[in-house]
């Protein structure tokens, strides 16, 4: 252990105290409130039609948003890692827009684009596709806010890939598609899975971007985070605690999953050396 450098006790003390007060105390209070609800009532709250539907809508739209980001994110990471072209730096900077832009602003902007008289809403309505105030709108808001995850996890791995394996495969006469499927994709798969999981987790909890575009109709376009917010406004704290604790548990499961993937990735890299 390194004890030459001073300040271990002080810095660890500050860190632990701060995390306890700012992070653990509130999360503990949430769990305490949820436990107070009791198992039977908890099940009754979650299986209530409005809550159950909100969970179904949230998971389905988050899955759709993640699927979009898997394709678009992978293509974006590939283009940024493999090609040189004018405007590449700008494109690279644009990827971070969803992280820097407040979710409320994103929601406002997307709703302006997709309402009936918006830039996209008009042409889409002519094709018979409604986005604003439908689950599709929710998925688009989720997709926007989670764009950077897949890109930023896959891009560095793609940049670090050595050319020699690809060359060897090409020398043996493998087609591009075959090399991608058998050499490149397996190499980026753990990072890709991590990015997808993070994107999905973020979409499950998204609020600000969604409420502007979703229409927020119970049983139709109401997501779990909004339902939690509504229960708080109705002073129905047991219901809010039950729903929020469920979301929290989901977040922990996703976090655990991501850590497992990363462990697997490190072990694979370790064994490859």
């Amino acid at each position, binding site marked *: *252990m390194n004890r030459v450098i001073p300040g271990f006790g002080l810095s660890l003390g500050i860190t632990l105290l701060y995390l306890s007060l700012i992070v653990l105390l509130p999360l503990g209070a949430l769990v305490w409130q949820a436990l107070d609800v009791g198992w039977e009532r908890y099940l009754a709250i979650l299986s209530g039609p409005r809550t159950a539907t909100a969970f179904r809508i949230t998971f389905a739209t988050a899955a759709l948003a993640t699927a979009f980001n898997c394709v678009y994110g992978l293509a974006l990471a590939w283009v940024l890692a493999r090609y040189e072209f004018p405007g590449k730096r700008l494109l690279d900077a644009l990827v971070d*827009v969803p*992280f820097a832009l407040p979710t409320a*602003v994103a929601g406002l902007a*997307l709703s302006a684009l997709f309402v009936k008289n918006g830039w996209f809403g008009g042409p889409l309505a002519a094709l018979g596709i409604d986005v604003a105030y439908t689950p599709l709108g929710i998925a688009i808001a989720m997709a926007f806010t989670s764009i950077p995850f897949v890109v930023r996890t896959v891009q560095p791995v793609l940049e670090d890939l050595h*050319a020699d394996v690809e060359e060897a495969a090409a020398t043996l006469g493998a087609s591009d598609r075959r090399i991608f499927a058998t050499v490149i994709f397996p190499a980026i798969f753990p990072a890709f899975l991590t990015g997808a999981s993070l994107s999905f987790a973020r979409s499950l909890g998204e*609020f600000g971007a969604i409420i502007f575009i979703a229409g927020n109709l119970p049983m139709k376009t109401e997501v779990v985070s909004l339902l939690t*917010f509504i229960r708080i406004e109705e002073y129905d704290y047991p219901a809010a605690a039950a729903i929020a604790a469920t979301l929290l548990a989901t977040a922990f499961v996703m976090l655990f999953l991501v850590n497992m993937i990363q462990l697997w990735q490190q072990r694979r890299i370790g064994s490859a050396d």
Partner: protein
Amino acid sequence: MAAPPTIPRPRKDGLGARVRVGSGAATRRVLIGAVLLVTALILVAPLAAIFAEALKHGWGAYAASFAAPDTQYAIWLTLITALVVVPINIGFGIAAAWCIAKFSFPGRNLLVALVELPFSISPIIAGVAYLFVYGAQGLLGPTLEAWDIKIMFAVPGIMLASLFVTAPFVARELIPLMIAQGSEEEEAAVTLGAGGWRILRLVTLPNVRFALLYGAALCNARVMGEFGAVSIVSGNIRGQTNTLPLQIELLYQDNNAVAAFAVATLLTAVALVTLVAKAIIERLDRAREAAH
């Protein structure tokens, strides 16, 4: 700054450049074209729409949007919140990075996970959790009431929720960099008789200043733009607990779209400045690395 002379890229591998997957002209063109098109539609169009909607009725209407006292209050409250929250989380980030990067101890990985935890938690959960601590029915509710301290539906609640949501930003930038840089310079400073604060100020912080700046910029953008957590703890009282994102929602619900978009341009500008700062910091970092 003068443009750097263009140096021809050395070909790393004689044949490799030609046979790498996707290097064919057609594949390349299709992929770049498709990505640029989707990016224009999903990333650029929303940014453009914000400014187009804000300026729909001209510059006069745009400027008038900021004259409303509620909006001016929201600007002020947002700035104050950032002024309080960002320095605190810079301090926390430095402390966390110092103990995690400079020392090894049992539970270190768990501590790293704990520092990053707020990133994985929906802001709505954060807001609800704070309500269960400081609200009337919360853990500390009765005590606070007895002492007549108001935290929920007031400015302190907004600041606490913002602290939670943005706690990891500075720490996450500093930790990997400080681990990568190692501790040799600090150890040398100790041998020369320097104390902890002196080392931090003269050795460590100068070495990580770009990462620190970037972390602080991200933290600031997020504090100013936080919506979910703040909307639960603030109570949305006009002219009292309304930050800029909440003001945007209120104006939008009031059917005052131009004003909502006008306020949104302020936060969009903050986001764009943050991204430009990131690009500059990355370039400086690369220049420094190349100079080493």
